[in-house]
């Protein structure tokens, strides 16, 4: 960070990076417990003057669904959702994610909430962005203990989607679907390559010079704080309060 840069929070940086990854698409959907992806999606919409459509699970305002919970999945199955977000208790170097448990599934040593829609959406949403704000050897592992959703599939498996990137509190990786490997794209301001290497449990590719993740612009921060934050408070009141100092409007 140089002196001319305004101060920003880690969550604002991550949301800005994810908004760039979303790109120019028609429909972004956000699932459970995803405040940073929700922030990024609403930012993309604020930048795009109402494009993309954002379907925010748990929101009354940012959903157009009228056919129940299945409509999201039916929509995705038809290719009508361009971007989705997934996380994992564990994520491995082949892009497999684990949202269920560690150890024998019958006698696990740790239990996570469950797979949600991942075992399906990972296959049919073209751009799945992985996010995990705890970047450690505990979360980024050589091999997941349980596959909720696989990073890649054999050629005869119907698969129109999969991971394109993984963002953490320390860095951004892109995903190569053919090699089924992550490549380090940039390290966030205040973090180092050495720190990324030490805290990542899987092998990944990297360029000779690893760039620093660009800081969010003044305009991006304005949109986040003035436009996005109040909308976010509907679904993530605690996150909006903590990051943006907002009270829920309900």
């Amino acid at each position, binding site marked *: 960070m140089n002196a001319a840069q305004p101060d920003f929070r880690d969550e604002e940086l991550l949301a800005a990076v994810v908004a760039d990854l979303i790109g120019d698409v028609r429909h972004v959907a956000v699932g459970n417990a995803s405040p940073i992806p929700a922030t990024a999606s609403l930012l993309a919409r604020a930048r795009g003057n109402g494009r993309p459509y954002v379907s925010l699970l748990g929101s009354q305002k940012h959903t157009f669904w009228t056919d129940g919970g299945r409509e999201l999945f039916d929509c995705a199955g038809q290719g009508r959702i361009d971007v989705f977000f997934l996380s994992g208790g564990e994520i491995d170097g082949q892009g497999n994610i684990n949202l269920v448990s560690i150890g024998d599934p019958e006698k696990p040593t740790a*239990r996570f909430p469950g797979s*949600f829609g991942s075992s399906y959406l990972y296959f049919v949403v073209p751009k799945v962005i992985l996010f995990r704000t705890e970047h450690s050897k505990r979360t980024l592992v050589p091999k997941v203990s349980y596959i909720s959703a696989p990073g890649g599939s054999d050629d005869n498996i119907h698969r129109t989607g999969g991971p394109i990137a993984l963002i953490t509190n320390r860095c951004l990786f892109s995903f190569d679907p053919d090699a089924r490997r992550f490549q380090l794209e940039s390290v966030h301001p205040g973090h180092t390559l050495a720190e990324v290497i030490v805290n990542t449990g899987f092998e990944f590719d990297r360029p000779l010079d690893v760039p620093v993740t660009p800081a969010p612009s003044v305009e991006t921060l304005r949109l986040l704080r003035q436009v996005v934050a109040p909308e976010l408070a509907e679904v993530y009141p605690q996150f909006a309060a903590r990051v943006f100092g907002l009270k829920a409007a309900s």
Partner: protein
Amino acid sequence: MIARTLDDALAPISDGCVLAVPRESSGVAMAATRALIRRGIKRLTLIALPTSSLQADLLIGAGCVETLETSAVSLGEFGAAPRFTAAVLKGSIKMRDATCPALHAAFQASEKGVPFMPLRGLLGTDVLKNRPDWKVMDNPFGDDDPIVLLPAIRPDVALFHAPMADRDGNVWIGRQRELITMAHASERTIVTVEKLHDGNLLEDKTLAAGTLPGFYVETVAVVENGCWPLPLPEYYAWDVEHLKEYVKLAATDEGFAKYLDQYVYERRAA
């Protein structure tokens, strides 16, 4: 059709029942859940369409659940569901882990009266590997195109909470249409509502499309604030302070027992 009391309405939910319940954004019958715990219901097969939060955690903690089928149990922003997590680690409930669209599809199979529904995805997952009741076949209309088949889910009872019902047992569910799928798929449907609507919901053309016909409904009980402390979307929000207190208490067996004493057995708010 309109039950005299909540307990009367819940009478068809007996020990060993296969009970379907919705996710929290659709209207979870929490007052009814507390009444079932007070009655000491046992050995439920609880099926969440497609996820659950406090409802599953409470029923599991109180020892009411034998088998749980769900895509996830979580308290969302409030964190992991403590009694669910403890029960899985202890092995005291039987888990049938699913994925959201699989549950939606299996309920749809039941509502259509067909034995199964195909679903994309799932191949190569441990979700599929741990579900011997799910099958893989080659798409008969394709060429080397494996696809997963899910058996229809036919619950004994569907239980949820809605904004209103009329005296003919028609229930207004608005946009929460998975409640309609759930009712169609289940043998019986029991609904708690905030209030009774004067007149017939199906005769009001703006309300009819968001109405579950009384034809599918066994009983309705009026329970104001019936989702508390969960939200009834567009009517009331989460009771944030209560959920925070729950998370704190439910972290230990003793704390959870105290929670039950204070908020379930004391008949408070229900």
